[in-house]
């Protein structure tokens, strides 16, 4: 529609309104697609605007980690299972950066909006809690996938990725980003200060993404921690993605898939409930 015709339509609408003198309520279908898209768009623009921090920095950090671990350990570890150490390590690092970045996206967005007080800008518009959830979630997933993809690309210059099962790679990358984006929303809604958020990141997210099998096979852990790992969704995310790349994992594929789906479902319902009740958002 050209600008001129658009103007005419709007004018026609106004004339109509003036005619019967009652303002019309804007009608939505079952989903406010325009609102949902706008929120998603904002969430993506937020991190693209500072892409050196949100995209380039994580990729460089991942490359640094990869390089130092390879230099330090290549001749000292040999193979993990049947995979050479570099091939084992690379998918783990891809998942680590996905986990940390999708979490960072939703949590920092929520947090900043709350601190600066512009959270009302997403609470006021005619979008349902479900649409709000999906907008944030979409932003988090997008960041996770883009960073994961860039890290994979960057590392593929240094190591040969086997790509055993592309479906599994996509599935675990998506479900892991979604899980972390949802967790990020919960964290962002709960936290009252940047301090709280930094604490969650430093004391929960980073340790879990480090210790859940990024750098070693879970079978190297003491018995008791192996049992603990079986209840840790981060472990299934890392293990699943690694299975997708190299066809070798500590847990069966279907179990990992089931865990990821159920965790996402539960988190989704929790966040939805929080948004519906307005927990710590509406006072």
């Amino acid at each position: 529609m050209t600008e001129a015709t658009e103007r005419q339509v709007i004018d026609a609408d106004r004339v109509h309104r003036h005619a019967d003198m009652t303002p019309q309520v804007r009608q939505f279908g079952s989903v406010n697609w325009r609102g949902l898209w706008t929120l998603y768009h904002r969430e993506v623009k937020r991190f693209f605007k500072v892409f050196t921090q949100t995209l380039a920095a994580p990729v460089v950090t991942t490359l640094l980690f990869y390089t130092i671990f390879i230099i330090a350990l290549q001749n000292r570890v040999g193979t993990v299972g049947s995979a050479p150490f570099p091939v084992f390590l690379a998918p783990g690092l891809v998942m680590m950066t996905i986990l940390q970045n999708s979490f960072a996206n939703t949590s920092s967005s929520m947090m900043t909006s709350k601190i600066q007080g512009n959270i009302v800008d997403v609470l006021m518009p005619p979008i349902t809690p479900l649409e709000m959830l999906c907008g944030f979630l979409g932003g988090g997933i997008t960041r996770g996938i883009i960073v994961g993809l860039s890290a994979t690309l960057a590392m593929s210059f240094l190591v040969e990725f086997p790509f055993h099962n592309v479906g599994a790679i996509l599935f675990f990358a998506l479900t892991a980003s979604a899980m972390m984006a949802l967790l990020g929303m919960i964290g962002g809604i709960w936290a009252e200060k940047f301090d709280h958020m930094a604490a969650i990141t430093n004391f929960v997210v980073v340790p879990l993404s480090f210790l859940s099998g990024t750098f070693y096979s879970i079978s190297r852990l003491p018995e008791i921690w192996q049992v603990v790992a079986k209840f840790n969704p981060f472990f299934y995310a890392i293990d699943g993605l690694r299975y997708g790349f190299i066809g070798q994992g500590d847990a069966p594929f279907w179990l990992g898939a089931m865990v990821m789906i159920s965790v996402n479902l539960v988190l989704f319902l929790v966040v939805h409930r929080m948004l519906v009740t307005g927990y710590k958002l509406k006072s």
Partner: protein
Amino acid sequence: MTDRTHLLLGGRPVARKFGLFNWLGLATFYRREMARGFKIWKITLAAPAIRAVLFASVFGLAIDQSTVTMGGLPFMAFLVPGLIAVAALERSFESAAFSIVYDKTEGIFGDLAVLPLTPGEIVLGFAGATVTGSLMVSTVVWIALLPFDARWPAEPLALVFFVAVGSLMIGLFSQISGLWARKWDYINSVQTFVFLPFVFFSGVFFALDALPVAIQPYARLNPVFYIVDGIRFGVSGQAEVSPWLGGGVCLGVMLFFWVVSYRLFAIGYRMKS
């Protein structure tokens, strides 16, 4: 007191007199910088300790600890001093630069220019807070890492010397970066794209002989290498280069940064505009 009486009686303001140093001002400035770090101790003290423990656990689980060696030491004995160095240097980098950029974004950085503090005192105040903070974080990290490699430092004096001079070097670099940075983006970029690579390739996690032969000579051009090697000498008594040479390099680079930072504060680079 006499100043004030004079002011009341004579009705004429009199310039406050300082000796060679404005000690009170310097101490106040130092206290402010220390308080800033302490206020967020979870981020400045606890988080580095957690990160060091994470790295130690991850490396410890990935290798067979009883057999693997690095640079002539058992792997953990090699890694622990490296992790102490990383914590000290990261803290040093985050000290002055973060204060400066925070003040810049808040629009209160210009306040420094009107204080009765000379550029030398400002540099000294920042540097003093950096060294104190970094000595504290190294102690905390050292304690946190005791379960991985329990040993009393072999050369405690050398250890303190290298932590202090290394932190000064990075702390002064941090002042320069902070002055240069206009926004958070700038300082985060320096950290990720300059500081981290220098630290990660300084022999924190591996001895230089683990590097490809072609790169090895260049790795020695990295001044951070001499800090890390010195700290490792302090903890384990073993070093790749003579601690005297290492100490000399660290002091030289530190002095260079000191002069640059002093000069930048003196001309008010990106400060008075």
